[in-house]
């Protein structure tokens, strides 16, 4: 093994990690907020709104992320309305397009996960909340959302790891994140295996950190399922 090459590759790739992390965190944040809205529409009970949410989920989960990203990156600039609008300086930026399409896509998956969480909320607990006079947003905020989020957490962790992998597609719209830099190194050096191993290691470490963080979150949200520990009360 050529350690000098491996370490210089590693250094080059690690320089691209911030870009990957920006893509990741922005799209998880925006996608999560969007997903809340879509979930709200989906469970609203209004056939038009929930129909729209259903169509959204169907489209973004049923087609490849890459084609969605190309549609945003190449497709939007075709329209004069967008080209001459105040948004264009942003939408011209590849990283904005990448975050936008990553967020739109993950929102579809996440909305389904949130809906699954809501369906797992026991009807009895909602009844109990109504019986003490809770309704509307208060009921959602205090009872439904916390329970639903806890139920949705394992599936949401999986989705977040999938998103970390999906940030790699941004390289195809010229955002130089880890996979893009790795691809450039491969075509410069032809040392595919070494570059692959370095890049793979970076992603596995990132996944590991995310999963540990999610486990920690899950643990802290499941105090009610753990045996009673009197020492912790003080």
């Amino acid at each position: 093994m050529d350690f000098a090459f491996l370490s210089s590759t590693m250094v080059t790739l690690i320089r691209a990690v911030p870009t990957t992390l920006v893509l990741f965190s922005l799209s998880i944040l925006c996608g999560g907020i969007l997903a809340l809205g879509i979930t709200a529409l989906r469970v609203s009970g209004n056939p038009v709104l929930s129909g729209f949410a259903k169509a959204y989920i169907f489209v973004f989960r049923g087609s490849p992320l890459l084609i969605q990203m190309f549609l945003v990156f190449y497709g939007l600039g075709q329209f004069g309305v967008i080209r001459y609008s105040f948004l264009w300086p942003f939408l011209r930026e590849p990283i904005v397009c990448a975050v936008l399409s990553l967020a739109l896509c993950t929102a579809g998956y996440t909305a389904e996960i949130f809906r699954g969480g809501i369906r797992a909320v026991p009807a009895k607990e909602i009844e109990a909340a109504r019986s003490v006079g809770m309704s509307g947003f208060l009921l959602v905020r205090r009872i439904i959302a916390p329970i639903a989020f806890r139920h949705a957490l394992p599936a949401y962790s999986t989705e977040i790891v999938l998103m970390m992998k999906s940030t790699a597609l941004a390289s195809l719209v010229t955002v130089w994140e880890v996979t893009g830099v790795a691809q450039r190194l491969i075509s410069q050096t032809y040392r595919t295996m070494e570059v692959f191993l370095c890049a793979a290691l970076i992603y596995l470490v990132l996944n590991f950190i995310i999963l540990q963080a999610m486990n920690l979150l899950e643990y802290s949200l499941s105090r009610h399922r753990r045996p009673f520990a009197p020492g912790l009360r003080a």
Partner: protein
Amino acid sequence: MAAWELLGLGAKGWGAFLLVAAVTTLAVTATALAIGAVAGAAIAAAKLSGSVILRVIGHVYTTVFRGVPELLIIYLIYFGGSSGLTAVGAWLGYDGFLGLPSFAAGALAVGIISGAYQAEVFRGAFHAIPRGELEAAMAIGMSRRLRLRRIIVPQVLRFAIPGLGNVWQLSLKDSALVSVTGLVELMRASQIASGSTRQYFLFYIVGGALYLILTSLSDRVFNTAERRANRSMSASTIGGA
């Protein structure tokens, strides 16, 4: 030129080109699913085996190929496979560059990824077999091989159908990434058509719609298969039995 002309099946239209590409997408995905089934069965067996080494190998495989971006794995197989092939060529006395065919590289890469997911599906399906049914097979004197063939495999296949449906959808979408190898599947074809006509929006929408058709059709196929396979499980068919 109007949209309907661009999408037509005639000489100036791109319709036929896109449809052929859609068939290529299905072919890559189907080949990948088959490769993944073999890899997945082997990895599931390794993860279920008594040997610590095999279990570690299985665990590493599923962790790596489910945790690393699909695009990187495609690069690994496509570029790595080509350099491997070139090295073999040089050894045999051929000096030039030998490229791995893009279809083979793509199907292999997506297949390897799909194998990691299928391994988990098969493992789950194996655990879904009631232990008592395996004991009954032992008690009647079935050998290991016979138990595998008559009891385990049929039940695993039945329990695996919903999971395999999900893996198929995943692979179908992953196959779009094979476009980076230059294989003219649906994604690449949409790129070519939109690039040549400058009608990006139109062709990516049409390409996306074709993907939606493929995913929803295959969803139906798997749902039907699941219903058929579970006929023996549901009590609703008592009258028809």
